[in-house]
């Protein structure tokens, strides 16, 4: 693998978009991240407040997966090992860069506890984004994370106005159960990402449906 390979890989993607989006979201997070908005929950007197940073971190979390999309995706899927090494490096690099920089910004702007919760949530959403990307195509990586938001916001709160154990985007930063859920989702995403060689067998019907529905 050479620098030239990496340059070719980046050339095919809107790679400059990642840092721009992450920087914009980070600025917005520092400025308005601590503001709380109300979201409907189906419990007595059902309004829960939701700090804005919780949802903004999702945009950062899915960036590494979304930006794997390439106009030559079908061609690249048949590429040799050299290519995959570049892709793994690119993914790992963007995960560290985007999630890391957002966590640091959140730490400085919103405090350490908040930054840790944001990091846990981003890890979970990244796992879902990888899963979604493998299932529906990288540019549709946003699908499952967005659906998860609906589930987390609607069912994530208990009657006593506490968050349920699996609410990985809102439980306290030292809560181990939600950390296990987040880690599990990340592992699932990673496993699906690595399992590309036999995805053809696994997801063949889905892939056919996808190419027809476009």
């Amino acid at each position, binding site marked *: 693998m050479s620098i030239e390979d990496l340059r070719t890989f980046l050339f095919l993607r809107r790679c400059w978009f990642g840092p721009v989006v992450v920087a914009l979201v980070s600025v917005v997070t520092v400025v308005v991240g601590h503001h709380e908005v109300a979201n409907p929950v189906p419990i007595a007197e059902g309004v829960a407040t939701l700090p804005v940073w919780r949802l903004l971190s999702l945009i950062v979390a899915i960036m590494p997966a*979304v930006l794997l999309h390439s106009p030559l995706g079908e061609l690249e899927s048949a590429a040799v090992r050299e290519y995959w090494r570049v892709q793994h490096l690119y993914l790992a690099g963007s995960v560290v860069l985007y999630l890391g920089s957002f966590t640091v910004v959140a730490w400085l702007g919103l405090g350490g506890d908040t930054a840790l919760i944001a990091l846990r949530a981003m890890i979970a959403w990244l796992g879902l984004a990888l899963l979604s990307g493998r299932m529906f195509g990288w540019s549709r990586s946003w699908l499952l994370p967005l659906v998860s938001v609906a589930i987390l916001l*609607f069912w994530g709160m208990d009657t006593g106005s506490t968050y349920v154990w699996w609410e990985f985007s809102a439980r306290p930063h030292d809560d181990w159960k939600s950390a296990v859920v987040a880690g599990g989702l990340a592992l699932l995403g990673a496993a699906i990402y690595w399992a590309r060689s036999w995805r053809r067998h696994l997801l063949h019907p889905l892939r056919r449906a996808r190419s027809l529905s476009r």
Partner: protein
Amino acid sequence: MRLIGVLRHANALWLLPFLIAVDLSMIFLRDDHWVGVWPETAVAAQMPAMFLAMLAAAYAAWTARREERLGLAEQLEASVRPRWQRELLGVASIAAVTVVAYCVGFVVALARTLPQSPPGFSLVPGYWLLGLFPMLAAVGAGWILGKYLPSAIAAVVAGIGGFLAFAYFGEIGGERIVVISGYPDTHVDLFVVLTRVAAAVALCAVAILLPVRKPRSLRGAEQPSYPWARPLVLVPACVVVMISVFALGRAAGPAIAERAAVDPLCRGDQMKLCLWPEHEKYAPVVAEISQRVEALPDIFVREEDVAWEYGLRYRVDRLDDGTVDLGDEEQGSSTFEIFDGSPGAITREIARMISWRGYQGECAREVDEARDVTLRIDSWLEHYLAGGGSPGQIPAGDPEVGEQLQRGFDVANGDLSREEQFEWAEEQVEEYRSICPRDGQS
């Protein structure tokens, strides 16, 4: 008919079963206190609109540049149909699929309440209209974002941004985009909500008419990059329509307005408890509570009494800064509320009312020992009126207060017979009177 024919082949159709599943789960995978009360049923069916709007915004943003993404821009540029017609179909199909999913949820929820056929069905259409606005506005806004941002990024920004905007303006901005409780003392102002829907439709029109940058291959020297001419007139016109219609709605008043009182539904003889007719479902519970009140020792009950559900005879004034002015009647007010289907709230209010009218006075606020006794009595009254028999713990709060509340709770829910409970209560009242001899004599 032709439009329906086109919609049958719309790409957005694959979304329909998924949205229906989301909608129905949000209606049914929750408590079912809404069953049997029309406004509550409509509100339960309307709540998912916020989440359907989020998904519709993301999908609209994802679809807006589908032609370019799939490399069809060049071919479609040569089609006889103008671009806005193709976009109209895109926007209409996403809006239709979202609204159909919403309507399916609504119909199923209404079918659940139908067998009980309570009064108050006329409140339902308002809530249905209320939920249309976020969905239609989300489709329009998502389509606009999708036209100018890369599809995948537009999708997530539209979904998250749309949700945050509705959440912000809905509760904190006080616009009530969706509501979470259908209290019978309020109703949806149809005029305000219709203006909102009209504004959302105008936003969709703007989204369709906004010009897009032509693909690189088609940017010749003789053609401008943006086909401006027609949109230059139509887009500002639609924006003006959108803003003025929305402003008209805002000027007309809040979306959720107070209802005029109606003939109440009353239960009980000596202690009459009156409900909004829409709350017919709670009439048996209220009748039981009324009987238990009548069985209480004389020390508690006046000759005849009436308590009204909130809004029937008495309203608190909500001040501009959001605080509530309870006026002089704070403790003695003969008003109770049914919060989200919890009859526990009724007995709590009635217990306070009985205490205040029977024996309590200002002393209960001023002397700590007197306060402790009233806490015990109120807690016992509340749980006795609710029927007792539910051993457990009072939720922890202030430990001192919690201890007194727990003592009253234990008496109501323990092994004591009704007569023994009454004896205990009378002793407590005697104790109170020994501390505060001047209270309750009027």
